[in-house]
């Protein structure tokens, strides 16, 4: 990241708290800066301290993945073991299952969860009448604020094979629904549909904002040229969303291995475990429940690194292809 901060800072008038002097020798830059800006540093101090302690110290603690955890010596005191725990993970019979499950869940969520809000925004944008539009928006944002525990609880009562609404409705139509919560083939669809139900409306806001800023003259011109409404959606609305799509896609790629821990964990049961055990839930069980701290740290680090690489690579590709970048 290029930093061109020195010059800009000099030009800005220094507030009176600075003490009044104008020209300073280069050596005194830091102390002058502190004298004039100490209040800003004071305002930032709690945020910086919290970030250092709760974000950067754990990053420093990642070296645990390369050490033997020693209860007596704490986070950074154990013997160096190099990549032993990574080898153990890659050689584990569970490794490929975990990777496959994680990729299946997060990639499906990524694709469906990326397309659905775009489609919804295009639909909502076509609705005529301010109030109807408002109502549709308000209704679709609502599930975003329901907690994951409650959503999973709702899934469990709705999909209960004996008493649930969905199996019963399917039964009326003559379809045998079966136990959707305990099935290995239904787990990913159930997970993804509930994700879309919860967040599709909320995620469409940003696209609706982009659509609201389209120049109205474009629509007028299209109509004069005899374009149908469907054609204006295809040739005006959709292209207008592309820049937003790219940015959100990059951000989503940074979570390619982040199958949402909480929801997956809550949906797990012995019947669907072959497809619902993902890297993060496995790391939780290994680390927190069976106290294999070094091994679980290595697994977590593997997950974080893959995500980070995907984020950086997608960002680079987007930069080349469309001149869009996060930084």
């Amino acid at each position: 990241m290029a930093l061109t901060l020195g010059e800009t800072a000099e030009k800005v008038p220094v507030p009176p708290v600075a003490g009044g002097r104008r020209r300073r020798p280069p050596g005194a830059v830091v102390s002058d800066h502190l004298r004039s800006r100490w209040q800003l540093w004071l305002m930032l101090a709690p945020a910086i301290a919290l970030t250092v302690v709760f974000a950067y110290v754990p990053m420093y603690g990642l070296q645990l993945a390369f050490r033997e955890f020693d209860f007596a010596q704490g986070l950074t005191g154990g013997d160096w073991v190099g990549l032993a725990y990574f080898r153990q993970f890659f050689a584990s019979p569970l490794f490929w299952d975990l990777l496959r499950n994680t990729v299946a869940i997060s990639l499906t969520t990524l694709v469906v969860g990326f397309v659905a809000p775009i489609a919804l925004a295009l639909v909502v944008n076509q609705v005529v009448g301010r109030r109807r539009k408002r109502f549709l928006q308000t209704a679709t944002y609502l599930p975003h604020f329901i907690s994951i525990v409650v959503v999973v609880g709702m899934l469990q009562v709705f999909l209960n094979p004996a008493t649930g609404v969905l199996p019963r409705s399917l039964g009326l139509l003559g379809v045998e629904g079966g136990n959707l919560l305990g099935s290995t083939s239904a787990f990913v669809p159930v997970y993804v549909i509930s994700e879309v139900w919860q967040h599709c409306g909320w995620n469409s806001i940003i696209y609706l904002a982009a659509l609201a800023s389209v120049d109205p003259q474009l629509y007028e011109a299209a109509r004069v040229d005899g374009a149908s409404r469907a054609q204006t959606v295809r040739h005006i609305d959709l292209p207008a969303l592309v820049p937003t799509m790219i940015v959100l896609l990059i951000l989503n790629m940074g979570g390619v291995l982040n199958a949402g821990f909480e929801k997956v964990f809550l949906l797990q049961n012995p019947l669907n475990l072959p497809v619902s055990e993902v890297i993060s839930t496995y790391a939780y069980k290994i680390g927190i429940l069976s106290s294999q701290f070094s091994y679980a740290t290595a697994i977590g680090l593997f997950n974080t690194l893959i995500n980070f690489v995907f984020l950086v690579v997608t960002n680079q590709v987007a930069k080349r292809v469309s001149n869009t970048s996060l930084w």
Partner: protein
Amino acid sequence: MTTTSPPRPPRRLRPAATTTRRPRVRHPRTPGELAFSVLLGLVCALVLFATLYPIWFVLIASVSSPAAVNTGQVWVLPAELSLFGYEQILSDGRIWTGYRNTILYTVVGTALNLVVTLPAAYALSRREFAPRRPLMFFFAFTMFFSGGLIPQYLLYKDLGLLDNWLVFVIPSALNVYNLIIARAFFEHSLPEELFEAATLDGVSYLQFFLRIALPLSKAIVSVIGLYYLVQHWNDFFTGLIFVRDYDKQPLQIVLRDILLSNQAFAGGAGGAGGTGGAYGQQYADQIKYGVIIVSTLPVLLVYPFIQKYFEKGVMIGSVKG
């Protein structure tokens, strides 16, 4: 200009209300257009139904008799009114302990969030503050890279945060996304002339922030305040990982025990054990419907009135700085 803060859409995206009125372009009433309108109406109806029916069903099922729900008499309106579920919930101590804890964590947590986030966001919005770009990177980096669960757990253990109610409040005191939104607001919505005039009168940064910037920024305070509020209210992870003492558990953990551990095949894992089996099995679903409503009611009641603020947050966050 390149920026340090990631989650912002590109230049072309300008904040604008989604409901901005603009002259409607009228298309001729051809059969094709008619089909388009009909299809649009159908899609909207389907979306509305899929979104709202699950919530509506829980609501009507919670006030109907278990027998009526189980025999399929409850579809559109409640049948055989019964408050059995609610009576059970009201007489159960766990829910109220959970409620009390969650309210405490939410109120204290949100207050701390605002005290930490707003001044920091204001400082980062000052253009003459030279280190603001590296500092933004310092904050934003943590959105994409983290130490992960175990180093975090061991750190909390060393700090004495395990089984301590402060764990619900302190580690989550700063949310970087909210910091970015607040910074964008201060940078774009406060006129620079105001600051220049105030500095001429000898007002310091702190005085300006407290006496001028904050009173003019009620919109952003309510937006990020609400974001934090919902975040605390729905927090399940913290209780699951870092707290064993049941008296300190928030509502979401209690909900998990009532809603989920009573299942024929409960997930098995998870420390804080509830007494899920205490209720008669045949009425279990009834209690669950009631619990869902009781725990979600505050959000459902307040939501329609504050919805526009949430939306505003997304808009502010999308400003290119």
